[in-house]
């Protein structure tokens, strides 16, 4: 078990390292750096001025060195004028710049967001909290909904109930968020149709989430994942329902609801559990679209802003968090699987 965990941890580190390096490389190509300089000092500046700004602000060093600075294995850059340090990467608590200090991700310093003018850690914390709130409600709607749909559909394969529920779940899974979100806003939130049950904007939900302002974004993400999990649950359920011990139970005279709840359900839930955990990375995809659509300033929206403005350190921070979320949920899913299914062992 310990070896398994260690190897997973190693994978996590190597993946993070590789991904951040790629992101770093792409965001530090020359035109991208020029873009940062121009958004900082104004648009109409000469190439020489861009060059000197980049030098003064630590972008002038070789890319590998700066990647090392971000990691925290190379001392942070400093800019000196007449032997006096005037600017640098590592700020001491007093506001002065420390020469020769290390301040990278390994020291817990996530860097500075050029778009939002805040520490990256603060921005990521803020956006993760908002997305966490969204995700919580998505899970609260999606998981029970999907399991109920799947179990109901799977307990009598081929019945009318099965056919109609399967149609619904295929339909929701086949509709991407950017379609369902727009349709929901048009139908349920605009004066065009006139229902106006919910809000078509979730901005106010950032401070105070209510039924009106949070339903549509939650529903948009939840429905997309729900169909998929429901299909998996149904497949697993139908398989269990044909097993020998279910037939034995029936022959014993156990009532049908009892068979489903007591005997079938536990075994049928092993497969969906993995699917649900693996759904997390997919949800990260969904929040990018839904948060932008509903103007909800969480993790996905932050990613769009960071990418659009070439905010290097924020993008790197977002990448690290994404890798950790994806690999961590996979790890939990693997371990959880072992506990649910005693026939499988790790390693």
């Amino acid at each position, binding site marked *: 078990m310990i070896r398994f965990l260690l190897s997973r941890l190693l994978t996590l580190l190597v993946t993070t390292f590789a991904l951040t390096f790629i992101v770093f490389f792409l965001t530090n190509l020359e035109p991208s750096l020029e873009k940062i300089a121009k*958004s900082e*000092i104004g648009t*109409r500046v000469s190439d020489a001025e861009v060059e000197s700004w980049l030098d003064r602000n630590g972008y002038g060093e070789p890319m590998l060195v700066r990647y090392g600075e971000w990691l925290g294995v190379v001392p942070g850059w400093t800019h000196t004028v007449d032997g006096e340090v005037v600017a640098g990467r590592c700020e001491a608590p007093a506001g002065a710049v420390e020469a020769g200090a290390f301040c990278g991700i390994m020291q817990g310093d996530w860097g500075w967001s050029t778009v*939002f003018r805040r520490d990256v850690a603060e921005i990521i914390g803020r956006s993760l909290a908002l997305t966490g709130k969204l995700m919580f409600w998505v899970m609260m709607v999606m998981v029970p909904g999907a399991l109920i749909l799947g179990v109901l559909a799977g307990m009598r394969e081929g019945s009318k109930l099965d056919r109609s529920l399967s149609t619904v779940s295929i339909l929701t899974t086949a509709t991407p968020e950017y379609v369902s979100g727009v349709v929901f806003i048009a139908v349920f939130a*605009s004066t065009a149709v006139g229902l106006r049950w919910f809000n*078509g904007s979730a901005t106010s939900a950032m401070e105070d989430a209510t039924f009106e302002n949070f339903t549509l974004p939650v529903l948009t993400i939840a429905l997309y994942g729900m169909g998929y999990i429901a299909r998996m649950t149904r497949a697993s359920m139908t398989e269990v329902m044909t097993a020998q011990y279910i037939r034995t139970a029936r022959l014993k005279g156990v009532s049908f609801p009892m068979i489903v709840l007591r005997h079938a359900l536990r075994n049928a839930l092993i497969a969906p559990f993995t699917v649900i955990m693996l759904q997390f990375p997919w949800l990260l995809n969904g929040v990018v679209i839904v948060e932008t659509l509903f*103007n909800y300033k969480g993790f996905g929206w932050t990613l769009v*802003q960071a990418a*659009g403005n070439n905010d290097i350190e924020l993008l790197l921070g977002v990448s690290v968090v994404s890798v950790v979320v994806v690999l961590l949920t996979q790890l939990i899913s693997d371990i959880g699987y072992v506990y649910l299914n005693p026939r499988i062992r790790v390693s």
Partner: protein
Amino acid sequence: MTIHDPRRAGLHPAAEMYAAEHRAGRLSRREFLTRATALGVGSSAAFGLIGLPAPARAENHMPMGGTLRMEMETKALKDPRLADWSQISNFYRGWLDYLVQYEADGSITPMLLESWDANEDATQFTLKVRQGVTWNNGDPFTAADVVRNITRWCDGTVEGNSMAGRMSQLVDAETNMAREGAIEEVDEMTVRLNLAAPDITVIVSMADYPAAIVHSSYESGDPSENPIGTGPYLPEVNEVGVRQVLVRNPDHQWWGTEVFGGPYLDRIEYIDYGTDPAAKLAAAESGEIDITYQTTGDFIDIFDAIGWQKSEVVTAATLAVRFNQDSPPYDNKDVRNALQMAVDNAIVLELGYNGRGTVAENHHVCPIHPEYAQIDPPVHDPAAAKALLDEAGFGNETFELISIDDAWQAASCDAVAAQLRDAGIQVERQVLPGSTFWNDWLEYPFSATEWNMRPLGVQILGLAYRSGVPWNETAYSSEEFDTLLAEAMSLADVEARREVMAKMEKLLQDDGVLIQPYWRSLYRHYTDKVQGAEMHPTFEHHHYKWAIAS
């Protein structure tokens, strides 16, 4: 209550002249007010000159308190003189005041200045500082503050300082700083400006949005970090791209309360909904905002339909579909003329902006500018355009027209591109998101830029078409034009200036500087509760006039 303005008896002689011109029908009321107040005539006196009562303000009925939520892109703050977005200034307007203020009716209101006088040929301006104004840290506001701020504006060595261009007659061309003796502190409450050459725009320029007055402790960077100012509000939240909040400063007695009344609101929240108007509509329908920053295109009708109040203002704001003359093939005058000739501006107005404006004439001077001269409109002849292009050897060239993804700007460029294609010219369109478009807006070879209005025609020409100025996105560089512009800047007499203007307008048309399809009317919508927040032609937010009924 009218503006508290202890006028002295002597009126500027030119003001009488403008009044005569107005009576003769050569000057509209708006033009007259802009010009007369720029010469130091108080707006009530100016109304008096043309025999009209000054409009009364209805502040007695204004409800006190409350929160107003407006949709606006919340941009990162900058040193005010470097501000390149009205949105930036609209946030710091909460705690930073201006010397003078441009009103929606075209007049200039004295703010931190009590009054000013110009000499006969507009080379010397005497500024009287308002009595009894204090900073919100308790310091008194004096002539020294005015001198320091004007000196800051004149510092052309600071990258991106657009105020230096506006104050060019106070700047020493050699050092690129304020000229020795140009800004004189006469006494504690009086400042005198000695201009190198006559310049009628100097006072109006002080109303422009980068001209906010900062405290002596401020050096550079984000002014909200240490918000010392003379204004009635304080920044509470400043989250770029998310939210900016102003709250009434309870510990500061704002000087304007006795002069204008107000401020009425306790709290002003700016919430960022990006550039997509559909998101703003969703916000309005969800009750998340009370007022839009601006309503554009098809959404004007939609906002009308959901029952919001519309506020419209006619402006000299426009879309400049311009060529950058530094980038081939646009360095070729025939290419530029051919592209202009292939486009009928009226069609662009119809398709791109639903006809909500007036057709323009490719020279960026608007009929509402005082010195506008009527010249022949540009010729529209697609066949001749194609022939001219073929002759220049660019018949098979594919032109790429870049625009931002904002609805009406993209639609207008599509209308331009469609007409070019109809003329047999190959065009590709590129639509960039707002976050990337502005990074290079000065450098694109062929693109469209939104320009806000300026009160005087010579101002916009000086900002955008004079050789080498920071915002010259066309890379237009003409000695003849520069000379004419300098001459126009010195002519206080509007008729004389109009003659020079006619030459400049013709020059801009002939040199094929830009396709300028139309002048926009601007719109804003708000709920029934909002009061005093009508649309302003230069997007200025005069927070102290705003109120909301509970």
